[in-house]
């Protein structure tokens, strides 16, 4: 069933705004806070129309005070409300990491389970040529902090379903939306273009095997799913079957699905638009090797942003982030090496 998207040439930011609206209709306890989310409808247009529909007390344009309004979310949650917070760029979360990792992430634990923190934080991440302070994804850093679920959708179906599941969750969830996706039409994506007309959720922590193949397991998420699928198509013509897994979330990390796949293919390539070291790629490789043992795993490889800030010049950005060519090269190398 093609629902909301098909006839209207809806883009992802519209889809997100519509999803938030559906959730706010469903649950009158949801309060939305953030910079420019109200009257202007969001810097990326992902909250358009909500201010008019739900009013200033439930859709609150905040001052540039991330520490203040992230901390507000803690008090709202303890008062029984369900805060949805927009951090415009995930890079800005550094300004308010204290309430995020000390309170939102820890209050359930520190209260012995007596305090719920059903807080959802949406933030834009990823490289679109906007330099070092507006290009990070940071899901590895956020995943490192216990108590936070970390989600990064790759396609229209999941942008709606994962966001709805995050908002509905009793746990704090950070949803990192890719800036490259906002203005793209839902029909342009290579997968997930079928959007049910009614409300649905995509469970948090369940990876999606988006392409079957027997020679190599490629695990990734967010916009790198699309680039990986394109590379897999090319590799098929070389006779290399690539199984592409969309992880959908970093926490919970569905290493079981990846492990099952690597048990058949024997090889794992992780493609990650986040810094290489101490992050998702190393963690996933370690878990799969721990799960299967070194004799089953014939090869592992990681393709991620090198450990340096994202440069401003687009030509330089292209040198450092994973792309289809580099995925092809990494895949061919790992398959050729045994």
């Amino acid at each position: 069933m093609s629902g909301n998207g098909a006839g209207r040439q809806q883009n992802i930011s519209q889809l997100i705004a519509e999803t938030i609206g559906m959730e706010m209709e469903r649950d009158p306890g949801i309060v939305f806070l953030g910079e420019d989310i109200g009257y202007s409808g969001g810097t990326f247009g992902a909250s358009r129309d909500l201010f008019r529909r739900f009013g200033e007390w439930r859709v609150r344009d905040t001052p540039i005070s991330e520490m203040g309004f992230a901390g507000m979310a803690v008090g709202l949650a303890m008062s029984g409300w369900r805060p949805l917070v927009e951090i415009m760029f995930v890079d800005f979360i550094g300004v308010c990491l204290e309430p995020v990792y000390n309170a939102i992430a820890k209050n359930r634990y520190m209260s012995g389970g007596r305090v719920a923190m059903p807080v959802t934080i949406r933030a834009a991440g990823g490289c679109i040529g906007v330099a070092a302070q507006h290009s990070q994804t940071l899901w590895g850093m956020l995943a490192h902090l216990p108590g936070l679920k970390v989600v990064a959708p790759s396609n229209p179906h999941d942008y709606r379903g994962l966001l709805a599941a995050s908002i509905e969750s009793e746990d704090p969830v950070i949803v990192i939306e890719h800036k490259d996706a906002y203005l793209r039409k839902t029909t342009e994506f290579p997968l997930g273009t079928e959007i049910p007309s009614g409300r649905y959720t995509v469970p948090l922590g369940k990876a999606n095997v988006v392409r079957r193949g027997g020679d190599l397991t490629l695990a990734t998420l967010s916009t790198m799913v699309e680039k990986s699928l394109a590379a897999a198509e090319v590799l098929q013509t070389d006779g290399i079957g690539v199984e592409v897994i969309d992880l959908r979330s970093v926490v919970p990390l569905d290493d079981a699905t990846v492990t099952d796949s690597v048990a058949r293919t024997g090889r794992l390539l992780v493609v990650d638009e986040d810094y290489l070291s101490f992050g998702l790629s190393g963690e996933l490789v370690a878990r799969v090797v721990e799960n299967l043992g070194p004799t089953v795993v014939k090869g592992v490889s990681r393709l991620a942003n090198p450990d340096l800030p994202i440069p401003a010049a687009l030509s330089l950005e292209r040198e450092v982030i994973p792309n289809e060519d580099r995925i092809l090269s990494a895949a061919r190398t790992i398959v050729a090496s045994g």
Partner: protein
Amino acid sequence: MMGDTAGLPPEHTQDAGPACRPERATGMSNAPTLLDRYRLMVTMRAFEEACAQGIPTGELRGELHLADGQEAVAAGMAGALRSDDWMVSTHRCHQHAIVKGVPLEEMMAEIYERVTGLSRGKGGHVHLFDMEHRFSVTGIVGSSLPVALGHAYACRLDNSDSIAIGITGDGGTNTGQFHETMNMAAIWRLPLVILVENNHYAISVPAEEVIAGRGIAERAEAYGAWGRRVDGTDVDEVAVAFAQAVGHARGGNGPALLEAVCFRFRGHYEGDIDHYRKTVVKRRMREEGDPLTIVRRRLLERGEVDETEIAEVESEARGRVRDILQKVRETPGPDAVEAFRDVFAEVPA
């Protein structure tokens, strides 16, 4: 919850009921007497001393911030403070919890990290959570205020006449959270009281060396808010000023900032060598600035009670805290499995 009420009038510690209670909106209809406040202050002093007993025995480590000397600030809130108001406290939090009605035994058990504690020993002394009594703590200086702001925002969303009280120290007024909270509470006219316990030192750094402008209370002016400074060693003065602050916030006039100037008798934490304050100054503040001595003298001057009655109040309060400490010490710590619970509500199958 257990029935410890810290000697407060019964009305004060009722469970939070319906949000709107117009008959209690003034807060002072059941105003505690000075003897009530004294009982509360003696309980607070005894409670802190009972916590300090865990240090030499090794039951507690040095990450323990006691508030001896600051009792008048907390006890001054009794009366105007309602059980359906929210309070978010700072690292020096026990006295605030006591005036908010948090049960003493569960709190002591949490501080001593026992299985019967508020969080079964997983929070500890700077992370007290008691939602039934609408009380929580954060151990990060300044961060209590945005949380209180969130409660105040929720009071507005609920169309309730409850308010939120965010507490910090003099050092906390130099954080960004303080200013962001003041600003947002003012622009949205939220029912928030920020109570600043100015005990003159941010750990070791004197307030006057690091706070620009004319003072902390005066910072309210920048936000068009109500601001006042009060002698935080005098419980009567605190009570009057706090009731005014609460009246301002509850009346829909936006935030109120109350600075209570007081003394912290002990170091910042247990184990602080406290070399940044002169011995003579420390002796003088105990001799001249002890809020318990001030109240005791006033009670006798007014002739409402005699020495015997005062001694009875003291003995009863101290005995109760002593019994609680003994009971807590006989209680086991949490099971090992407890360490692995409560990270998430939902774990994928």
